[in-house]
């Protein structure tokens, strides 16, 4: 299939309004949406089966339908551009090279749910992307696609950027709203869901960048075109981020009929330097590992779920045989320990414990009891926190223990890490206690 979302990203000035209008039928989707009623737009998005691209895969049309329409409070679209799941870098490309597609998606979303403002919550580290988006928004204001009486239809809408400041947790939808309100990015108790109690207590739809970028395409090319692109219930184009030990890491667009093996071996050129594949993390750091024999599955929400993992944010991290799996769990737990927002005790304390026990094992100072303790502590986190972060943090430990327990045992028996790859730093420094 020809790419739709990222087709022109390598062409000069593809981020400009002129390019968008001339080469991509820019804002035609918006024009078509505004010619329909908001209910019809939601129906079309529902019929397309578009599923959220941020990680959970929840149907976008349903999310919009849940928005409380009877209230007289304002409604909002909050676009989640906090892209911070390790291994994910697709929204970055969309925003930097095709920003008007996102703006158009925000506008259609606002029209569908009756909102007058969309906030794009972009992570603080994407400063260069933010500059491109700001420029695009300014262009769109000047051309009358954003602002008052858009395209002469009487529809008013504003699009604003809100810059985050370095917090993984802000990618969780309620934490994102808290951060937008000028507070710490910590999740809220759900329910109430954002559809009834979101930003400033008003009905809010929180949608991922890639999700909103799909919406203009549905309006432009029609529901049938969209659903035909993928397997049942997994329609539309999909962006995959392939990184790690592959020859050509990058963002690849495909339909969800593609298999994981194709993405890794054909698109990304397979494992680099003639090494062999050890394992694959198919959907960002918080999903279970798949082994080389499990890759002949469709890279769809349902296909990867059947194989025992999750598509998540479609961040495929490829690991070759030089990777120590205890080190991998340690690296990811360093991440989760740093990023835990601290609201729920099991996650705040548990990630700290997991990290420190893993450090002890990786350094070769652990014993069998530590391996059992890891399993125990991870089990005390899963399902006991307000948001999915807790489960995500426990997953790297549980999945490496499930598939590579012998590596943990080797660390304990040999009193050192048996597999220190040349790309790693010297010995892990000692810590005071333990």
């Amino acid at each position, binding site marked *: 299939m020809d790419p739709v979302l990222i087709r022109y990203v*390598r062409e*000069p*000035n593809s981020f400009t309004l002129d390019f968008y209008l001339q080469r991509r039928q820019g804002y035609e989707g918006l024009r078509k949406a505004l010619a329909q009623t908001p209910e019809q737009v939601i129906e079309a998005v529902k019929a397309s089966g578009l599923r959220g691209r941020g990680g959970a895969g929840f149907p976008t049309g349903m999310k919009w339908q849940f928005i409380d329409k009877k209230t007289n409070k304002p409604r909002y679209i909050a676009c989640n551009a906090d*892209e*911070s*799941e*390790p*291994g*994910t*870098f697709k*929204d*970055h490309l969309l925003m*930097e090279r095709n920003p008007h597609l996102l703006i158009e998606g925000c506008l259609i979303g606002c029209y569908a749910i009756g909102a007058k403002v969309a906030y794009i919550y972009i992570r*603080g*580290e994407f400063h*260069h*992307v933010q500059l491109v988006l700001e420029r695009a928004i300014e262009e769109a204001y000047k051309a009358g696609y954003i602002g008052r009486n858009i395209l002469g239809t009487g529809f008013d809408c*504003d699009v*604003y950027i*809100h*810059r*985050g*400041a*370095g*917090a*993984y947790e802000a990618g969780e939808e309620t934490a994102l709203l808290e951060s*937008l*309100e*000028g*507070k*710490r*990015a910590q999740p809220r108790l759900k329910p109430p869901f954002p559809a009834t109690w979101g930003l*400033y207590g008003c009905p809010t739809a929180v949608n991922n960048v890639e999700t909103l970028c799909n919406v203009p395409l549905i309006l432009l090319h029609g529901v049938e075109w969209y659903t035909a692109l993928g397997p049942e219930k997994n329609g539309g184009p999909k962006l995959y*981020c*392939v*990184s*790690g*030990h592959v020859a050509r*890491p*990058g963002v690849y667009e495909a339909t969800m009929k593609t298999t994981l093996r194709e993405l890794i071996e054909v698109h990304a050129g397979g494992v680099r330097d003639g090494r062999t594949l050890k394992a694959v*993390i198919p959907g960002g*750091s918080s999903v279970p590992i798949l082994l080389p024999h499990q890759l002949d599955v469709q890279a769809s929400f349902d296909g990867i779920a059947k194989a025992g993992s999750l598509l998540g944010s479609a*961040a495929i*991290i490829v690991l070759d045989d030089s990777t120590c799996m205890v080190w991998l769990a340690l*690296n*990811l737990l*360093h*991440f989760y320990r*740093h990023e835990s927002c601290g609201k729920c005790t099991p996650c705040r*304390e548990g990630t*700290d*414990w997991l*990290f*420190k026990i893993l*450090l002890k094992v990786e350094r070769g100072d652990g014993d069998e009891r530590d391996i059992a303790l890891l399993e125990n502590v991870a089990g005390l986190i899963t399902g006991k926190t307000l948001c999915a972060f807790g489960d995500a943090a426990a997953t790297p430990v549980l999945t490496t223990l499930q598939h590579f327990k012998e590596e943990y045992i080797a660390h304990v028996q040999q009193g050192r890490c048996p597999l220190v790859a040349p*790309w*790693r730093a010297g010995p892990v420094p000692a*810590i*005071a*206690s333990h």
Partner: protein
Amino acid sequence: MSFHPQMDYAGAHQRSMRAQPTDDGQPFEYTPENRVRFEEIARRYPPEQRRSAILPALYLVQRQRGFITLNAIQHVAQVIGCTAAEVEDVVSFYTMFYTRPMGRYVLQVCRTLSCALLGAERVTEELSAALGIGVGETDAKGTFSLLEVECLGACDRAPVVMVNDAWHECLAPEAARALVEALKARGEDAVSGCVHKVEK
């Protein structure tokens, strides 16, 4: 931070290296331009929700002063109409707000999985050796600070180092020293920027 008695509080692997905001003894007030800029930003939010502008307000402080001081927190609270505690609450949560003076070039090495798989740990080692400072430190002249950062979202261009607000991509460990020299000689022009930008 764990509160268990067997846990180590002062060790090298503590989660947070963040210091409390300091009172540098200097009063803080926005420059007139920044004050105007702040009000422009605050208009993006409903009038009764000015607190939403805390993050942008703190970015303005950081651009003006280099880091966030106690007096700056007071000023932001006053301008927004909230308590200083509410502002400090935010400052202490987000990693991109500095509470102490930083070097002219803040180098932040992405240390998370995809970058680490391609040598980020060694990049940090090399940078640390070239600069003569450890992670979390600033050199005596105030030129460089070295930090580690969690996933920047550029895993296809690993290893990535953020230099102030810009990205330097595909930094092989062997090239780390050369980057330091290039920064000394040419400043931020030495940074490769983001590969997606094809219009150079």
